[in-house]
């Protein structure tokens, strides 16, 4: 069958059907409440900071706050909040169904398993993108709301503000794409996906000291390359400190390479999951 002869329209309808079913479960499930709390944590941090500044009658330093935001975005938001949020969302897409003993519902439909995987991944991605993009925007609002509106407008419309906001949203989305693919694979390949999640966390943490080729096998390498504001030395203390190690890419990738690299990595991981999913059996008895 030629590429053009494939039933793309059918697959599109099926992917949408899977995503509709899954989105409701992912966004509205009570067991996913902790992901919302996790996503709101940095917003509360910035809101508290702004509140204290206003209460103390102090005027903030816009440049300094921009750098602090860059550091928190890299150290806390990407590495912990989005990382663990994606663990919660994506490992459950298949693993949760096995634990609920409901995966056979999908396996008994006239649906290719790779189409099922695409639908589930899309639903997870939509949920993660909505939750974490909203969090990114709210963080920016919470950080800058106590500044004079002229300063903020100047930053947004006459400086690089809008570009920075777009870049942070783009990095957030790419983080969801990258970590999402890895944790979906963990849910398909492993009975206990928490263990591979910890291994990935360790890998992402130490990847900064690995040889350049191995660095490219981590999601954080590409994400750091795309962050619009470099974390300055005054925050990372000195070049040999742990924070510097976490924040600085010695040889960052170009924007195009970073985006393509991350997408290729994600597609490769999803393809591996798809191969495993095709051979997956329903055997709830061993759970």
């Amino acid at each position: 069958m030629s590429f053009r002869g494939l039933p793309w329209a059918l697959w599109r309808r099926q992917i949408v059907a899977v995503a509709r079913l899954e989105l409701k479960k992912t966004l509205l499930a009570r067991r996913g409440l902790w992901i919302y709390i996790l996503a709101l944590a940095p917003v509360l941090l910035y809101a508290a900071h702004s509140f204290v500044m206003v209460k103390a009658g102090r005027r903030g330093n816009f440049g300094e706050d921009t750098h602090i935001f860059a550091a928190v975005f890299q150290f806390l938001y990407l590495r912990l909040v989005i990382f663990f949020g994606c663990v919660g969302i994506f490992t459950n897409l298949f693993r949760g169904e096995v634990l609920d003993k409901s995966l056979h519902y999908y396996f008994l439909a006239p649906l290719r398993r790779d189409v099922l995987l695409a639908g589930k991944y899309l639903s997870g991605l939509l949920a993660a993108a909505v939750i974490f993009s909203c969090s990114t925007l709210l963080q920016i609002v919470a950080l800058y709301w106590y500044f004079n509106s002229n300063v903020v407008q100047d930053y947004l419309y006459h400086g690089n503000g809008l570009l920075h906001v777009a870049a942070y949203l783009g990095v957030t989305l790419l983080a969801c794409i990258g970590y999402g693919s890895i944790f979906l694979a963990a849910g398909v390949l492993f009975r206990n996906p928490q263990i591979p999640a910890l291994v990935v966390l360790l890998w992402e943490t130490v990847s900064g000291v690995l040889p350049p080729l191995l660095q490219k096998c981590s999601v954080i390498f590409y994400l750091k390359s795309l962050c619009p504001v470099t974390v300055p030395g005054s925050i990372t203390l000195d070049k040999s400190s742990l924070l510097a190690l976490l924040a600085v890419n010695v040889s960052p990738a170009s924007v195009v390479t970073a985006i393509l690299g991350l997408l290729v990595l994600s597609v490769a991981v999803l393809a591996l999951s798809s191969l495993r999913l095709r051979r997956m059996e329903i055997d709830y008895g061993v759970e």
Partner: protein
Amino acid sequence: MNDAAPDKRIVFEDVSKFYGEVLGVNRVNLSIPPGITSLVGPNGSGKTTLMNLMTGLVEPTRGRIRVLGLSPRQPEQLFRRLGYCTQYDSFPRGLTGYQFVYSYLRLSGRGHAEAEELAVQAIERVNLGEAAHRSIASYSKGMRQRIKLAQAICHNPTVLVLDEPLNGLDPLIRAETIALFRALAAQGLHLIISSHVLHEVDVISDQVVLLSNGYVVAEGEIRGVRDEIQEHPMQILIRCNNPGALASQVFLQDYVVEARLHHDGGGLLVKTRDADRFYLLLNRIAQNGIDIESVAPADDDVLSVYEYLIGTEEPSK
């Protein structure tokens, strides 16, 4: 079993399935024609494994399976022609009965209007119309069984695989469900029904496959074995609101050997030599004021019937 062409049959060629070192089924050779075929055997005999093999939920360790000429590894084609009502009593979270069936049809790629029409038809067919928009979490066991059946038949399949489909149904619904199976078989469908109770399926089956410890120990037309079991008492547990009154009514029948109250007081254990007539009697009793919640074969006795039929030691679970 008969001469239908291979692409009209369900064919197992030397199929074995092992779960690690545990045997599921071994060296199964079957060629199942259209009509109603019952897989009968005690718990652990391999009935569900055979059904899961023919639907691709598990893969054979050895051998080859073809369902109407299709491989179970082609779900996108197989499940357009096959419906499977599994024994798994679990559902995707948060769905109503209607959504459960409707979403299945949308997964198969059908548009909203067609999926809606087919879902409503299937739900009406299993008499669940009034409860269709209630959450499945609030359904009784019998209702869950019926909504699974609706999902299995909603796309008008050619092959219907039903794993213990009468479990948990009250006598009236059981009779209606059996009538539905007959109607479907009359349309030329393959119906593969599993049961650990031969009595339950012998009245509707064209042929039977007896399984023991993962092996097919006998297969053929139902008539031969039916006569044999007629004389062997079978034990049935009936859960109802008034077991005492039920006992007084059933004990008058000559084919009821024994009737005693269940130890928890909520049911009656009946031994009968003629399960068919007993089930008919229950239908009449259910219409006359006694609220029958469930009817289920009492397992130990089923095993003894089974032993009797295949003439072997009690199969291990």
